[in-house]
């Protein structure tokens, strides 16, 4: 479960519709994952106390910057119980992508998050294509390739 390469989601998950995700952003506005249908979504569950999460932020910034025009949306769901901790983290490691908040962790439960961080790649049809646990800079190139390939797919 801590493999750091992309693992295809389990057979039962491959291509299954992504669970619902409706959460508030820092300004209290509600966002719905279903509204991103037609885009490729990189969804990341993180917390301020998680070391690899810190390393993943610069990479996710790059990803957003490079592929936003190709129809990629990077969405990060923060699972800190204290909003203050997330704010401190973001002050040190700014995010140029969407950050939503779920202090209760209900979304993490619905998505079956097994470790921090956990991320999901969702295709334009709203189906989960793969899941990824942990983050290592060396696996970034492989992730890039996976995402680029999915962006080519209509």
């Amino acid at each position, binding site marked *: 479960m*801590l493999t750091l390469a992309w693992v295809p989601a389990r057979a039962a998950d491959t291509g299954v519709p992504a669970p619902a995700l409706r959460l508030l952003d820092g300004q209290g506005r509600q966002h719905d994952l279903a509204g991103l249908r037609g885009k490729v979504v990189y969804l990341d569950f993180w917390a*301020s106390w998680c070391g690899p999460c810190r390393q993943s932020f610069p990479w996710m910034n790059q990803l957003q910057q490079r592929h936003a025009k190709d129809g990629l949306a990077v969405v990060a769901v923060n699972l800190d119980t204290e909003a203050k901790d997330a704010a401190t983290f973001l002050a040190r490691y700014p995010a140029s992508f969407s950050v939503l908040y779920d202090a209760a962790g209900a979304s993490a439960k619905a998505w079956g998050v097994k470790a921090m961080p956990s991320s999901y790649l969702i295709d334009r049809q709203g189906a989960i294509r793969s899941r990824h646990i942990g983050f290592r800079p060396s696996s970034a190139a492989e992730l890039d390739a996976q995402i680029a390939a999915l962006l080519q797919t209509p």
Partner: protein
Amino acid sequence: MQLTPDLQTDHAISHPLGLLTAAALALMPATAQAVAPPDSTSVTVSYLSYQDYDAQRDRMQVHAPQLHLRTALGERFGLEMAATVETMSGASPEFHNALSGASGKGIADRRRAADAKLSHYFDRVVLGLGLAYSDEDDYRSRGAGLDVQWLSEDQNTTLVAGLGSSSDHISATDRPLIQQRRHGKEAMLGLTQVLSPVAIVQSNLTYSRGHGYFSDSYKALDRRPDSRHQLAWLTRYRHYLPALQAAVHLDYRYYRDSWGVRAHSLETSWYQPVGERWLLQPSLRYHSQAAARFYSDRFPPARFNTLYSADSRLGALGAVTVGLKASWHYSAQTTVALLAEHYQQRASWHAGGQGSTAMMPFKANWLSLGVGHRFE
């Protein structure tokens, strides 16, 4: 509603420094997240000043600069290293012995010690190889250990198993003909369990068997067994109090060995963050031990050619340590810490009994000042 692709305003607001939280990123227990080497390099230097004394006079002083380093080597390896040079000065080398006043000569000894541990991180397994070295004029010790940690799939349980060995060489500075050896082997089994979002416990059982020379060549008539089998059972509990943002530590060690020593050591500390920059940490430790079978208060011994030691450290006694540590976060990366502790040993503090009556009360104070820095 469409997801807003750019929420810069979220973090454009100025936030409190949150240094303690930021520092929290530096060091995490294995059960909290994906198993990985430390994500930053940290270096700590500290200076220890130790002094012990009895009612009459100062007896011994130790000054020791210390260095600690923790770093990742690539994405799969972690390295931890520590080194120290202790300079001891005082009345006698057997600085803690009721009989030692006899020699009374001034001594200065130096101990150089270093240890290193290399860890290899697999997905849910960590392999560790440790080496330790300690060298004095009259004593040299080398140790090596190998341990394996398994993390359960839900990351709430960690099992650890380890094997170690040590090889010591003993001489006496005043009698070059004394050349002795001691060998030890040890095995450890441990379990770490997350009990709740605020509680975690660890229990480690260590069994060791040593063979060779255990006597103290500086002490007259000191004659100890040529083997020592030891069992140490250490249980550590950590509890977080969200309302106070404080942590309570509780450690208990049960110890017994083939010399007849039975000991209980109980230690508790309170970690209290104060504001954004301070951490105060009062601590209390109590230790009680039963005497080794061959320990005697009497000198000389009643009979010669039997196992005998008047080393008060092998007597029945109780000991208390009271300590306070204050840490100041200069920045998210740099911390300065001052630790002061007072230690007292008394026969009468021995739990459930009088203790070894001829023993003199013993006191020690130590102070340690350290600076730690985390490189990003």
